């Protein structure tokens, strides 16, 4: 059953066609890979899905509802969370607070309740704290809870981004190059974490340059090149697709 459906998405910046009639469907419970050479439009596609950019035309439906034109926070509320290619944590907040921010939308205390510290606000605050601790231990960085986010090691910062995204209670988790800059051990741990998240019922959209990771992890893979989807299939078949090889090597194959 489909969770996210993009229909003929177009996005251009001035004269540059960043996305050209891209259609794709991500099913519930799936790990869906998105690969392509640099500048192929992968991150642009992420930004269109999460409401940062408005597509010039095309449709996006998520969980049977159209989400085109919604603001990023509304998309987040609908159940799409993301991490960033270059880490975007709240650097001057603690590790725990970063995750607590992720829970913002799914809790009910308003400004009034927070300012006057009503009983329900205090109760909810405690729940937020406990739940956030659970997400931190889920990704394995609970011991860092009270450190500032900027003091974490690179790998832990990536984990924190995932914990923060999970705290928004997503149905779809979009990971933008989560293995970038990781060594082999860290990448292996990341793979296990992503599998665990999927097994807990969250679908995953994964942009990655690490071909091995994509091949090991994804149920299906789409390939973007110059804003167009040139292939979509199970990893083994995408790997041998002549059009994909040409896009990566950039010329005729012998």
């Amino acid at each position, binding site marked *: 059953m489909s969770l996210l459906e993009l229909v003929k998405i177009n996005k251009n910046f001035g004269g540059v066609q960043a996305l050209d009639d891209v259609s794709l469907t991500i099913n519930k419970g799936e790990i869906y890979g998105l690969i392509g050479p640099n500048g192929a439009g992968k991150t642009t596609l992420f930004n269109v899905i999460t409401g940062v950019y408005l597509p010039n035309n095309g449709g996006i439906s998520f969980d049977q509802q159209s989400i085109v034109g919604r603001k990023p926070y509304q998309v987040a509320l609908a159940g799409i969370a993301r991490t960033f290619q270059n880490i975007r944590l709240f650097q001057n907040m603690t590790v725990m*607070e970063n995750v607590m921010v992720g829970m913002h939308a799914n809790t009910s205390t308003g400004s009034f309740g927070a300012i006057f510290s009503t009983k329900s606000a205090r109760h909810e605050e405690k729940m937020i704290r406990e739940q956030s601790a659970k997400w931190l231990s889920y990704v394995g960085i609970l011991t860092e809870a009270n450190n500032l986010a900027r003091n974490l090691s690179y790998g832990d910062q990536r984990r924190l981004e995932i914990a923060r995204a999970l705290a928004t209670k997503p149905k779809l988790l979009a990971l933008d190059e989560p293995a970038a800059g990781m060594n082999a051990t860290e990448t292996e741990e990341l793979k296990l974490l992503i599998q665990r998240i999927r097994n807990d019922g969250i679908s995953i959209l994964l942009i990655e340059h690490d071909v091995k990771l994509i091949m090991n992890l994804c149920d299906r893979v789409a390939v973007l090149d110059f804003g167009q989807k040139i292939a979509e299939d199970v990893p083994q078949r995408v790997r041998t697709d002549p059009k994909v090889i040409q896009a990566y090597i950039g010329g005729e194959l012998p």
Partner: protein
Amino acid sequence: MDIFAQQVLNGLVLGSVYALVALGYTMVYGILGLINFAHGEVVMIGAMIALAVVSALLSVFPEMSPFLMIALAGTAAILVCMSLAFFIERLAYRPLRNAPRLAPLITAIGISILLQNIAMIIWGRKYKTVPQIFPTETFELFGANITSVQIFIITVSALLMAGLLVIVHFTKLGRAMRATSESQRVAGLMGINVNKIISVTFMIGAGLAAVAGILIAGNYSVAHYSMGFMLGLKAFTAAVLGGIGNLGGAVLGGLLLGLIESIGAGYIGDLTGGFLGSHYQDVFAFVVLIVVLVFRPTGIMGERVSERA
């Protein structure tokens, strides 16, 4: 009477009002990178509304308890100022959110002039005397005289500042505010309604400004349509001195600036052999501003130079 102790005390009283106003500047700057030059006028409107309410109550219920009276006047002033700030942000700043930075800055100056003129039309050009609804008692503390009004000012300011710090650091709203100030884009993607948080930030700042207006009018027993202008500039100086964008810095900067002004004004006559008098008080604030901008533009507690684009 110990003159030094007296000047320190006066400085703390003045400084706590600067601090309250500086918090409003610094919160808005922290989130939007905007120096809201209309903030001083919000202080003035707060004072004027409270004065109008008190005058009305005095003529209708002369027997009313002064505490109830100040509570009613304060509530009215806070509500008016919060609504005012909400509409200023919504109508004047939000449409310019993605405009070059100078555009909202100039708009802020425009709003400041607009509010002054509206206040002049409503309340006239004359200085308005603030009725003394509390019996003024004087106490002695470390060789200085302190009045009940001054005690009231310091207590109210300290409570509000502590309350604000608690809200910002320990509540869901505060987390959302800090997250928004680090990155509006990421905060939005994490499910925070950024526009709402910005509105609330303006309104909290305006609430503090309203109280500051009442306190300063009570302290000098006078209110005027242009009273917010100089006060606003000084509070802005205090915010820069402490490190703009930093709440603790605004409090520290406010208190320090109050002390510098007060002690400076107390001794300037002696130091210049009577050539300059205490009416040169205002000079100190701007000398401080220039010195800070030249030698430590990030202020005392500011560490990061603006990273935003």
